């Protein structure tokens, strides 16, 4: 009779160093992430390959509904506008649009993408420092809400609307000191030095520009809810001056985005989940700042939010496969996985949650995770406590919904499949893995170089 063999675990020896004698290490092993939204990781890889980006429709809808509810409970008129640059995969945008989100775009390409998805011009907000005249013309014609970034653009708009006698709906982006670091003063008009007020007067003196809103966006990954209260109250003060001096009431106040997600920054010691304020706190602060507005309750302007990261980060996963194990010169363990920094741009600033997708041993070891690229910068994580991983085993990198699918690039390797797990449990391909044909489609070879 065959004897039952014991479960094997890779042999590990750990030296005790003073100051580091904690057997829990700097990261505890959580349970393996064997499924995403109930679908086995192995099944997903089997069907769609590795590496693989996975989105959860259910999670996106939950995030959006939850955020709407939180803000709506505190302020009567709330409108979200999906930040295209955070993730402009068509399927992802479409879920947000089905949840009544407008589109917030920052380039002609993004504007075209939103129009192509059927978003009404009047439900598009056009931000950014470089819109271009043709895009502005398109935007004016479609009734897009144009958020002016600088005086050159303001004068472009005056010129364009005068030359074909169109009306444009505009807002200005205002930058300000809200007590957070670093101060964002490169976008929009400054509040403290009076530039914003100057821009408003110029808009109101032009007969073709209609001032419909005020916009600010105080930064990114903001951890202070109080900063949003200050920002909201400064915009409210501007609105008050506009009402007093011109008897005009703006339709909306756009508070931008920038709420931190639960991804931990590399420079943060404590996990983000412990120090990042909840959406409720951001909403409380914004509402209390806005209630300084000089309007009657029924006249209150609409509150627009361009929340990106906080609505999508936790709905995206990257599944990757262990290619090799290595021992570095200093004795540290390293694993090479099949997803590199070209797919996971955010690994430059986040300590992502990384979890094995299968049961593994209890002992963890300080491990460096490298991507597959033949480039020194291709390091997904400098140091993380991980159990022994065998070749071919999978890991799941969480909180990868924001910015990764817009900032990723084809580099050395082509980009992989992206799938969405639908609410009914089916799995849909939402972006096909790239092919050589796709990549070379735009390339041309001069005749001289064609002969061999």
């Amino acid at each position, binding site marked *: 009779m065959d004897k039952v063999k014991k479960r094997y*675990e*890779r042999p*590990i*020896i750990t030296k005790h160093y003073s100051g580091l004698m904690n057997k829990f290490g700097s990261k505890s092993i959580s349970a393996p992430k064997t499924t995403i939204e109930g679908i086995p990781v192995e099944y997903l890889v089997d069907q769609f390959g590795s590496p693989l980006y996975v989105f959860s429709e259910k999670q996106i809808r939950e995030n959006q509904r939850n955020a709407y509810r939180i803000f709506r409970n505190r302020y009567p008129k709330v409108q979200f506008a999906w930040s295209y640059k955070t993730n402009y995969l068509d399927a992802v945008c479409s879920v947000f649009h089905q949840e009544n989100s407008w589109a917030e775009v920052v380039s002609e390409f993004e504007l075209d993408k939103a129009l192509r998805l059927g978003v009404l011009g009047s439900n598009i907000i056009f931000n950014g420092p470089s819109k271009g005249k043709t895009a502005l013309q398109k935007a004016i014609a479609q009734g897009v809400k144009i958020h002016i970034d600088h005086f050159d653009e303001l004068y472009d708009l005056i010129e364009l609307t005068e030359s074909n006698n169109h009306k444009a709906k505009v807002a200005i982006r205002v930058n300000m000191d809200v007590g957070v670091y670093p101060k964002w003063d490169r976008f929009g008009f400054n509040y403290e030095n009076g530039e914003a007020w100057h821009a408003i007067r110029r808009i109101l003196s032009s007969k073709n520009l209609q001032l419909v809103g005020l916009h600010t966006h105080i930064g990114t990954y903001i951890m202070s809810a109080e900063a949003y209260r200050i920002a909201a109250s400064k915009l409210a003060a501007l609105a008050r001056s506009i009402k007093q001096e011109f008897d005009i009431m703006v339709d909306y106040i756009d508070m931008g985005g920038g709420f931190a997600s639960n991804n931990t920054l590399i420079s943060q010691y404590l996990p983000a989940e412990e120090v990042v304020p909840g959406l409720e706190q951001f909403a409380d602060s914004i509402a209390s700042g806005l209630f300084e507005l000089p309007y009657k309750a029924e006249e209150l302007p609409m509150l627009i939010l361009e929340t990106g990261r906080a609505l999508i980060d936790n709905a995206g996963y990257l599944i990757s496969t262990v290619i090799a194990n290595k*021992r570095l010169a200093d004795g540290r363990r390293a694993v090479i996985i099949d997803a590199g920094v070209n797919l996971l741009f955010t690994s430059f600033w986040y300590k992502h949650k990384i979890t094995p997708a299968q049961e593994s041993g209890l002992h963890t070891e300080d491990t460096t995770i490298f991507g597959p690229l033949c480039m020194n910068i291709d390091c997904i994580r400098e140091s993380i406590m991980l159990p022994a991983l065998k070749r071919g085993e999978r890991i799941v990198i969480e909180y990868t919904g924001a910015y990764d699918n817009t900032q990723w690039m084809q580099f050395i390797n082509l980009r992989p499949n992206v799938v969405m797990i639908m609410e009914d449990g089916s799995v849909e391909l939402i972006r096909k893995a790239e092919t050589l044909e796709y990549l070379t489609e735009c390339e041309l070879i001069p005749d001289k170089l064609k002969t061999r």
Partner: protein
Amino acid sequence: MSKYSVPETLAVSDSGFLFLPNTGETFTLNLVGKEILNLLQDGLSEEEIVKHMLDRYDIDERSLEKDLSDFIMQLRKYSIIKEE
């Protein structure tokens, strides 16, 4: 056939705690690591250890061979064992 010498005074406790009396360093080994160190102490060669372990554990030969050579490299780095 690589064989390694392990000081006789070296003792790994049941919990996998290892104390080097000559240097004062301490280590933790997991169960498989502890078993392998004990086998080295018994004078088994690398090949004999592979054979012994394959018999007892649910693991393929190639993976075991890779893990073992990595483990032995570390033991040597920490001067716990010496090649004979």
